């Protein structure tokens, strides 16, 4: 689990850098959440949870919101990804993007509720919800690209010799 965790954490850090240095303040997208969702569609739950903690910690460290807010939001995404993976048997990119949209919407509900309870903002204020809605739609639209990125990282890890524990070793003819 360590190798993919390090690889996906580095990808997350790179995305965070791009968001901070290039996209901010003109484009707001939840790319780290999308990354976590697509990693959550892979078999390993422990990898997804660990990645959720790493990415949540990274976001919490740069924000003024209490530590743990983004961790909780990561958990919501992990739960949604696992649910989608088990119940809906996602195979097509379109369905995956749709499932990511639903997951991001649930994450938004969680964040709105928690920030409301902590006294950060009113619940579902009109202007904020509109901006966040656009952000979620834009993020979900990038789903296929994120799928390719996660797939690419996976392939790169396999080329480097890493193989998930659940996956059988490749067939080797007897006697070789």
């Amino acid at each position: 689990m360590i190798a993919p965790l390090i690889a996906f954490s580095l990808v997350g850090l790179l995305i965070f850098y791009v968001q901070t240095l290039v996209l901010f303040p003109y484009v707001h997208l939840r790319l780290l959440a999308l990354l976590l969702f697509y990693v959550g569609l892979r078999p390993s739950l422990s990898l997804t949870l660990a990645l959720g903690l790493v990415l949540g910690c990274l976001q919490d460290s740069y924000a003024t919101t209490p530590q743990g807010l983004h961790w909780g939001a990561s958990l919501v995404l992990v739960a949604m990804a696992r649910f989608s993976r088990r119940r809906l048997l996602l195979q097509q990119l379109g369905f995956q993007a749709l499932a990511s949209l639903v997951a991001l919407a649930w994450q938004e509900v969680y964040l709105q509720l928690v920030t409301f309870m902590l006294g950060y903002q009113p619940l579902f204020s009109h202007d904020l919800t509109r901006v966040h809605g656009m952000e979620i739609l834009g993020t979900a639209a990038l789903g296929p690209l994120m799928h390719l990125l996660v797939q690419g990282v996976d392939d790169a890890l396999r080329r480097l010799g890493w193989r998930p524990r659940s996956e059988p070793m490749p067939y080797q003819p007897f006697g070789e």
Partner: protein
Amino acid sequence: MHPQGRYRTPLLLVLTLLLVFTVLSLSLKRSPALRKVQGLVVAMTAPGLEGLSYVGRSAKQLWLGYFYLVGVRRQNAELQRQLEEYKQRGVHFEEAEQALTRLEGLLDLKRQVALPVIGARVIAYDPTLWSSSAIINQGKAQGVKEGLPVLAPQGIVGRIVEVYPEYSKVMLIVDRKSSADAMVQRTRVRGMLKGKGGNRGSLEFVPKSADVQVGDLVLASGLVGLYPKGLVFGKVTAANKKNPGVFQEIEVTPSVDLSALEEVLVVKVATLTLSEP
């Protein structure tokens, strides 16, 4: 399924949930251990941001100062080599002049504030919409402390909320948790300036009988002692008396472009106040 395997997933989820809620509650109590974790994360990731930011600036300068001029030379063959050199110098001078103007502004502010200050460079922002904060490249080692005000030549930026060994976190005045005592310059009406997210704030608890108009300057009152008195928060961009209740709805836009900060000043003594301009 093996009994251990059956309980593995729910156990993992319960443990993670417990961890998250424990951390959340510790964070609300401002636990020093969590601050250390945050400091560690910032210390590990901020140098990368700082480095990339530097590379980006250098690449931009190189583009403006060299590649762009090469393109111009190709398109304009009649231009002499000397002229190109002058242009290159011009670009460098322009860049230097802009930096000089910014630094002069900071120096003026330093003189105006008449308090010990530390110059700092903004290296990162919180890219999410849930809070408005920035990371600066001065920390505990340079004498930065929590609660110190942060200023730019155009006005108030925010205050220090977390200090790490080499970096600090600044809560911008538009953050939803930010509030400060403020007054309208023209009529001396006081109110509480609260952050509203995005790039706006609101002046609250101002009675409807008070005279506040669009375009009025909103200054720090200095009464709570957090921000030096007389420094500019921003301008009134909307004032509504038709809302229900006894107070007006006043929207304030900061005088500083809080999403494009480069150099800022950290005032080292938070409790002193400025003499009124």
